[in-house]
């Protein structure tokens, strides 16, 4: 087990190296430099700026310098907002994306898991059909459709919630819901499927025949086991919500990492592009590692060597 974890963590290093190399090359392959956007600067000033940031070095040296600094926790300067470093930018914008992701995840779990459970317990009833239809709807309605509809209805028509921006709890409701509802539907379907499988197991029949009350069977015997596959997707789902929140950030004008990434790409702000990309890659890799570990932790039959 320990060996397995160490091996997985070690394997993350080459993955991150390759990702940084690809991102670095892609970023530098985009024509135009970071200082092209402003009113045309004199050649000498651009040359000075490039020298200051090391942009006149050969590409391989820029890359190795970047890596060296990144290993020391310094993700470099930002070219487009000079007073801030990439570390500043990430520590300012990432918490926003993370908060949004956590809220959406909470909505997904609070709505999705009970819905799936009820559905499974009342299989093939109208409640089941209704819940599963709702889940299918939730999976199919993209943020781009739901966002504008919610804004129109709750913010403009009923005038009870703000249209956009970030900071107060009222401003968080619509975006978190828009982001979370798809995952809620996903969790509902997963919970239902897993619950249906579990309640047909022999140990459930045993519990019932022992005279355990139906409520007890459901909560202590069925639910606990049915939640195994659900718990394991929570990590990757959270990573997907955070890295995918840029759609919602764009719709609701939320100053998160994703929105900043789009701006940085257009500004050719290489260090910011690389920084955010690497941060999200780490998030994804950790989430995937966690799945395997939770599997092993929850289900002792699984052994890793």
């Amino acid at each position, binding site marked *: 087990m320990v060996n397995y974890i160490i091996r997985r963590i070690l394997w993350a290093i080459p993955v991150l190296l390759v990702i940084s190399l690809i991102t670095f090359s892609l970023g530098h392959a985009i024509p135009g430099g970071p200082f092209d956007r402003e009113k045309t600067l004199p050649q000498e000033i651009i040359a000075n700026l490039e020298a200051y940031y090391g942009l006149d070095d050969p590409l391989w040296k820029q890359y190795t310098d970047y890596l060296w600094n990144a290993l020391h926790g310094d993700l470099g300067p930002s070219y487009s907002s000079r007073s801030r470093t990439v570390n500043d930018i990430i520590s300012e914008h990432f918490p926003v994306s993370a908060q949004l992701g956590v809220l959406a995840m909470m909505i997904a779990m609070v709505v999705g898991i009970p819905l799936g459970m009820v559905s499974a317990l009342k299989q093939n009833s109208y409640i089941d059909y209704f819940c599963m239809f709702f889940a299918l709807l939730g999976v199919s309605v993209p943020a781009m459709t739901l966002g*504008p509809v919610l804004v129109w209805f709750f913010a*403009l028509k009923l005038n009870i919630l703000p249209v956009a921006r970030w900071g107060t709890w009222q401003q968080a409701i619509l975006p978190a819901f828009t982001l979370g509802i798809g995952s809620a539907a996903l969790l509902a379907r997963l919970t239902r499927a897993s619950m249906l499988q579990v309640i047909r197991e022999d140990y459930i029949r045993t519990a019932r025949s022992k005279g355990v009350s139906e409520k007890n069977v459901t909560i202590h015997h069925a639910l606990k086991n049915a939640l195994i596959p659900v718990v394991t997707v929570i990590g990757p789902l959270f990573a997907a919500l955070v890295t995918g929140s840029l759609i919602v950030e764009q719709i609701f004008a939320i100053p998160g990492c994703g929105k900043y990434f789009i701006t940085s790409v257009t500004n050719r702000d290489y260090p910011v592009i690389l920084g955010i990309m690497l941060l999200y890659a780490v998030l994804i890799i950790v989430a995937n590692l966690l799945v395997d570990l939770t599997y092993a932790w929850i289900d002792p039959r699984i052994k890793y060597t």
Partner: protein
Amino acid sequence: MEVNLKERDNEVKDKIIIDERPEVSLWKDAFRRLLKNKMAVLGGIIILVLLTLAIFAPYIAPYHYAEGSLLDNYAKPGAKYLLGADFMGRDLLSRIIYGTRISLSVGIVGALTAFIIGMFYGVVSGYYGGKVDDIMMRFVDIMYGFPTLLLIILLMVLFKSTFAIATPGTFVGYLNVVDRAFGGLFFIFIGIGVTAWLEMARIARGMALSLREKEFVEAARATGNFNLQIILKHVLPNLIGPCIVRVTLAIPGYITFEAFLSFIGLGVNPPTPSWGMMISEGYKAIRSYPHLAIYPGLALAISMMAFNFLGDGLRDALDPRMK
């Protein structure tokens, strides 16, 4: 008593099989089950309608997608414009109808890349196993580490700006001409194709890994078949069903990718009518004209729903155990 019952049962079964049911192939059987699933049939019908709209758009749409009169900008829904007109006085309904072309072609191209590249990649990796598998899957692992949306955004900016300054006549210039002919779609195809095949590769690999241990594959090998023959004749047909299901369920994802790219201005070139771009144009005027953002959004949601309905139905039909 029990024995008798069993015998009778077997007799009945034999009778049914021999007398009333001729030969039913797996696919025919699955298709029959699919037709019994109302949601799946509904999804299929919606997809057929969308396809018809996409193919015959010029005959169905009342106006051309780029045709507009500034006098009619933001016209209310009515007799002249059924769903109203947008900020340039273009008929919204016509643009939505033409928009099916974009979304469907992105969905289909995404599905094809996933299917052709992903499935073959996965099958080869899983079937050969060992070192080959190790190397091929390590590559997939690396690609999996990328935040997909960010990677596609970066690629789109790269494509758009590299090809914008391309000199005509060179290879890059030629690609640019192709992209312009597609209204900016060509690069979206590439961007989505880069990541679309990954999941399929993993799934196909997993199945190929277990299939290659099966007796019938061993028998095929023992009777002197080449690896390629075995893959094509014995391995692929056994995993194509689940792969079709996955691809159908992945199509909504490809469609949202395109819509999102167009939403943030990295997708199709105006005036090509993409639903994502229409939502972003309409969203700017949501205070006064909410329908401009909501109708294309509905079109997007309906088409995604149709593929999800069909995909769910296919899964149940091809694998009755999942039900």
